[in-house]
């Protein structure tokens, strides 16, 4: 699991590659910490390379979502696969995030 964060003007893009399972979530939680303090940014979670996500990963997404809301940032989830979309559906996350 690899998390890459890039800044592009007002946008901060976090690109996830690999499987975000419970084990990977620990590291990913660390990796995404920089996103938590961003203010008034557009945070884009690029899931084009994300193969899998479990509830731990979802919790990270939810955490980002909550922090962003607290810091006046916006979170957009991009390029989710059908599998992940299915998980989002099952968990109601589909309605929690703006998905592009």
């Amino acid at each position, binding site marked *: 699991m690899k998390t890459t964060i890039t800044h592009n003007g007002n946008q901060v893009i976090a690109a996830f590659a690999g499987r975000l399972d*419970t*084990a990977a979530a620990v590291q990913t939680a660390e990796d995404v910490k920089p996103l938590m303090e961003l203010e008034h940014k557009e945070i884009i979670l690029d899931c084009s390379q994300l193969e*899998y996500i*479990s509830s731990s990963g*979802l919790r990270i997404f*939810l955490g980002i979502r*909550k922090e962003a809301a607290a810091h006046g940032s916006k979170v957009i989830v991009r390029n989710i696969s059908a599998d992940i979309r*299915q998980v989002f559906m*099952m968990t109601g996350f589909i309605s929690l995030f703006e998905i592009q």
Partner: protein
Amino acid sequence: MKNENAHKAPRQRSSFWILLVAAILLEAIAFVQYFASHEAVKREAMQRAQSELRKAELEIETHTIEMETAAKMLAKLTQQYLDRPDSIYGATKMVVSTLHNTSVAVAFIPNYFPKKGHYYEICSTRSDDGIYTRQIGSAEHDYTQMEWFQNGLVIDSCWWCEPYLDDSGSQTWVVSCSCPVYDRNGQVVAVVCVDLSLDYLEQLSEYLQVFPKSYYTISSGNGQLIVPAPDTIPGRKYYTFTEDIDATGWHLEIIIPDDVLYADLRRIGLIITIMMLLGIIILGAMLYFAARTNKKLILSTEKNERMESELYIASAIQMAMLPKVFPPFADRPDLNIHGLVEPAKEVGGDLYDFYIRHDKLFFCIGDVSGKGVPASLVMAMTRSLFRTISSHEEKAAEIVKTMNASVTEQNTQNMFLTFFVGVLDCQTGILDYCNAGHNAPVLIANGEHHMLPVLANIPLGIDAEYPFVAQTTQMKHSDLLFLYTDGLTEAENSTHTLFGDERMMASLATVTDTCPRKVIEHMQGAVTTFVAGAEQSDDLTMLAIRYQYPALYMRNDIQQIPTLAEWIEGLGLPDELSMPVNLALEEAVTNVMLYAYPGQHGSVLVECAKSLDPATRAPRLIFTITDSGIPFDPTKKEEADISLSAEEREIGGLGIHLVRQIMSEVLYERKDDKNVLTLIKNI
């Protein structure tokens, strides 16, 4: 052992009796022949002796007559020359010239010729030198005192004196024949005496020596021995044949010692006896060897029987050595195997075997051609070969090739066997298999069944060099490989209809539970129903192997989670199922890891099974997650309310929610101090 002795004794006794009877018979023949010959020899000897005696008698009588004739002729001549005393010389000379080795004499009564003196005896002797005639009468040679003269005077015919040893000249036995000479007045005036040398009697041996070592005697009337015999030896038996000679009163005797008479017979008898003894020895030897051969035969028969039973036992032991404890690997939830050998009445040659080495399952099934002891022997050998060769070879083709070379090399009975070897990599599910003329196994995968595509190759034991080709297939989770021998497909019912491939496949199609034991019981039931009591003619052997990906053991460490994904991938689930199942299992497992072992190390076991829904017969996956932690029922855990906004959402509760979302049924049970969570996914 008891039996052996019981067998042995009468045989030895009968040999002894045969030998004894043969010996008695042969000896009886020998004795009968001997005594018959004995009599014949005796009779022949007697006849010959009599005949020879008569010849001798004739010879003696010839001489006697000759001498008597000579004596009488001389008496006649003397009578004519009584008036001319000197002419007597000529008369004696003439007579002696007609005789052999003799002398003749004419002795006158004293003073018959006064001119010639008191004594007058003209004697003519014939010797080799010629005839010598002289007057020998004198006071010193007073013939008048001699027996022959005195008897000659009184006996009116020839008188034979007793033979006497002539001390005057030749030192030979001499016999004299005397007869009177009468004058014209009938007065005895002289006595003629013809001496006969008994030298000639020696020549009678020609007749009387009937056997080289027999002898004869000639004795005079009063027992004087003219021709003596050696003294008899006491204890020696003699046969005596006698003849009396009337003319001389002599007594002829042929004496044949018993041993001489029967010498030839005894020699022949001895030869015959020796030959018979040899015959008996040979017969004895023959009987001995025959008995030994018999014994060998008996022994080998016994040995065969024993061997057969031993081989039966060996076969039974070998059968027992075939894996018979099912399920065989308690620690291998990934492999479930069941096997069955239902031997026919006669010892057969079916076998199966399997074992695990280096996380690979080596298995085989085979059917030796023919039945009985040789087949079971080959079967036993084959199993050993399989174990030995596969212990250092992992490639199915190489195992088969090496086994084939060995079996062919050791194949003295022209037996062959169909054989199938599989090597299943338990890590990957890749099955490497090589067939040697055996029935194609059936693969039941995802509820479908088909015969595994197999190259027939050729059976083992035919061509040592045959290039067997292996094949591979991927066994998926819960796939079942069903192996069998032709005892199944060629099971016959009472109308000699074969069970056949079609019935077998049809029966397999109705299998609902791929538990190997149940599959085999199902097939056994199917074939039993089919044959309906007809006698089983061949071994019925079946082997079912169900492969499940390894059950997954994980420590209570969330860093182990990625192994779950690998494991699930290995299950070969349909793509659309893979991710949700993974997710559900991950959530359930994570729950265990996080909550079942608070502050402790622990483990969690994940297993998967494929089955049909008992009610709907729909296929379904059953996952069980087992841990030994504190009682923890995740189904009781409060679910996340997904209708809440992000701000309202709790961090927890998503996991069990996902499990419920994904799985068809979630069941928890506390069993044997373990938490067992069963997740059922209908597919």
